[in-house]
């Protein structure tokens, strides 16, 4: 790989990679069984530079912010390189958010340029917020020939043949603004520097190296910190190939493994569990004799890899299992949410390593990662090289709040010095998660201190963001909490939200109000729904500016109510 310590910026590192491996394939884009694109690093450069040139012609300069709103595909990475080449700050937006929320984040980021897929742009144009859209240049990809683009330009035609100027940036300059949450009242735009990314890449590739010939399967959204690192910066600075699959259908994911001889893939627990389920089902369908043989081979593999993995041995012993994943798979990376140890163990017993770790966008992706020396399913691994992890105020069992110090920790939250000061204290990032470090240096996660949940799909949900969907409910006041925040549980599995409702004059909720709560809840995306409601009969404690004192209210609820009193919706 390239020696990233020599580079000042992502643009500089990527530029060097394009020169170093001109004939290697850098991108393959597949949609179901069709292959849309297959390009080399040279062709990638030839696509990106005329785009950069056109952007510079239209006033793109050092520090200009540009948002990308696309599903995983080659144009995402080509556009990102054009932005970095031109000294820009990239704002990767989540394509899975509703269009009005995307527009709010776009406005918050002050991005002047927007690169967007047609179907997402069409949805944006239909919202009330569209009128106040401020992006100066909008480039729409894959728009049908006669589509109304509302003044936007076609990405495919937006080119300038003149030579663009490479704009250098320093390590401390902002590279990206990544929204970790807060699409409601208070957007959390993590400003990550070039140094944050370069250092993270050095740390991750020291454990999981890439090289020309490695095929990384990209299905997690590229706007997500994990795929941005292991599905773009990591493989590109090592001359490897990224395979974009434009569908999440399980049957096409399975097919892609064998067709593209995948080496690595990052996924969320939900997909990993789905793969586990599929394998277990296939095992159950084996004849009793074959199943006995398989179980015996798994036992042998387990015994021989107890202390450290032996990929070649596992591939020989459990050939058919490994063949089902294409025969070249070295590891899965799982992240975005907590993964159950039994799932990690299942794959390890088959000789398939799962790089399980812990991280957050604010820390520049991963903080800890499994090092397989030996494999342990019950922890989130050890701190990556360059990461210092400290437990704040540990209790008698050593459990306290996880804090991190490293060159990968973000610079600040965009336009929010108050939240930045609460989150980064004396150089330490306060994660809001609870954990302990065991005697062998592994981090064990023990729940959350902050009022939030993470779904199995890796989505961070902040209760405050859900409250706006219940605005106007005919009750005196209401508030949404993470159930585990009200009643702490030392688990990060099956987290749920609870709506706390205080009715007028402390009267019991009427069937009409309950029906309305249910109706509003049904209109939310499934991962945003509250699991139930809790009736409360006292005024909420408020600040001088009439905001709910959530911490105090949570303490009151904890003292007065039990979790079993939550009425399921």
């Amino acid at each position, binding site marked *: 790989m390239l020696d990233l310590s020599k580079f000042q910026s992502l643009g500089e590192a990527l530029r060097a990679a394009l020169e170093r491996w001109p004939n290697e394939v850098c991108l393959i884009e597949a949609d179901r069984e069709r292959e849309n694109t297959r390009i080399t690093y040279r062709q990638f450069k030839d696509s990106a530079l005329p785009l950069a040139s056109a952007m510079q012609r239209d006033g793109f300069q050092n520090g200009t912010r540009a948002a990308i709103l696309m*599903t995983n595909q080659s144009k995402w990475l080509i556009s990102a390189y054009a932005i970095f080449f031109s000294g820009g700050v990239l704002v990767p937006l989540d*394509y*899975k958010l*509703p269009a009005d929320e995307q527009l709010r984040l776009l406005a918050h980021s002050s991005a002047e340029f927007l690169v967007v897929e047609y*179907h*997402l742009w069409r949805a944006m144009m239909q919202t009330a917020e569209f009128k106040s859209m401020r992006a100066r240049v909008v480039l729409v990809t894959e728009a049908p020939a006669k589509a109304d683009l509302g003044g936007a330009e076609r990405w495919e035609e937006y080119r300038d043949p003149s030579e663009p100027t490479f704009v250098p940036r320093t390590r401390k300059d902002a590279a990206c603004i990544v929204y970790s949450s807060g699409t409601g009242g208070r957007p959390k735009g993590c400003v990550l520097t070039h140094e944050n990314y370069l250092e993270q890449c050095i740390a991750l590739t020291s454990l999981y190296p890439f090289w020309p010939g490695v095929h990384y399967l990209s299905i997690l959204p590229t706007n997500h910190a994990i795929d941005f690192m292991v599905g773009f910066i990591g493989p590109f600075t090592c001359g490897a190939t990224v395979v974009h699959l*434009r*569908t*999440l*259908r*399980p*049957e096409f994911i399975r097919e892609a493994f064998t067709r593209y001889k995948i080496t690595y893939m990052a996924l969320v627990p*939900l*997909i990993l569990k*789905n793969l586990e389920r599929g394998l277990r089902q296939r095992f159950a369908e084996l004849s009793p004799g074959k199943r006995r043989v398989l179980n015996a081979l798994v036992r042998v593999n387990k015994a021989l890899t107890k202390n450290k993995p032996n990929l070649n041995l596992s591939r020989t012993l459990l050939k058919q299992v490994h063949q089902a994943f294409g025969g070249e798979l070295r590891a899965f990376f799982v992240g975005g949410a907590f993964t159950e140890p039994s799932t990690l163990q299942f794959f390890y017993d088959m000789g398939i390593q799962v790089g399980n770790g812990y991280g957050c966008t604010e820390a520049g992706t991963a903080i800890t990662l499994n090092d397989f020396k030996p494999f342990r399913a019950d922890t989130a691994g050890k701190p990556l090289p360059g990461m210092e992890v400290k437990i704040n105020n540990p209790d008698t069992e050593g459990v306290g709040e996880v804090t991190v110090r490293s060159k990968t920790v973000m610079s600040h939250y965009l336009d929010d010095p108050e939240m930045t000061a609460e989150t980064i204290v004396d150089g330490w990032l306060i994660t809001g998660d609870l954990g302990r470090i065991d005697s062998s240096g592994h981090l064990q996660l023990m729940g959350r201190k902050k009022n939030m949940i993470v779904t*199995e*799909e890796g989505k961070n949900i902040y209760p405050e963001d859900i409250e706006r969907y219940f605005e106007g409910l005919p009750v005196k006041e209401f508030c949404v909490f993470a159930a585990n925040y009200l009643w702490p549980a030392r688990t990060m599995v099956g987290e749920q939200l609870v709506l706390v409702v205080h009715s007028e004059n402390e009267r019991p909720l009427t069937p009409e109000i309950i029906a309305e709560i249910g109706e509003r809840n*049904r209109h939310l*995306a*499934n991962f945003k729904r509250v699991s139930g409601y809790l009736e409360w009969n006292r005024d909420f404690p408020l600040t001088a500016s009439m905001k709910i004192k959530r911490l105090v209210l949570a303490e009151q609820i904890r003292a007065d109510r039990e979790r079993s009193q939550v009425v399921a919706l």
Partner: protein
Amino acid sequence: MKTLDQTTDEVLNLAAQHFKVPRDKLNSGDDFFKTLGINSLQALDLLTRLEQHFSIELPDYELQDVSDFRTLAERIQSRL
């Protein structure tokens, strides 16, 4: 050309068959994640089954923010 009601009815029949639930337990306004007790990947599986039945191709994004049978049927109807 099928009517939206016919399409919705066929969607409900196929969903019941696919996830082995009694057809009379499903209504067009139901949230399929909740009624069927499925996650987003299982919903994609259903989408594949529906594509085969209606001989259409629906990109994954068509299912984004769709959670009831009726809206799903509308998305299918627009491609028939």
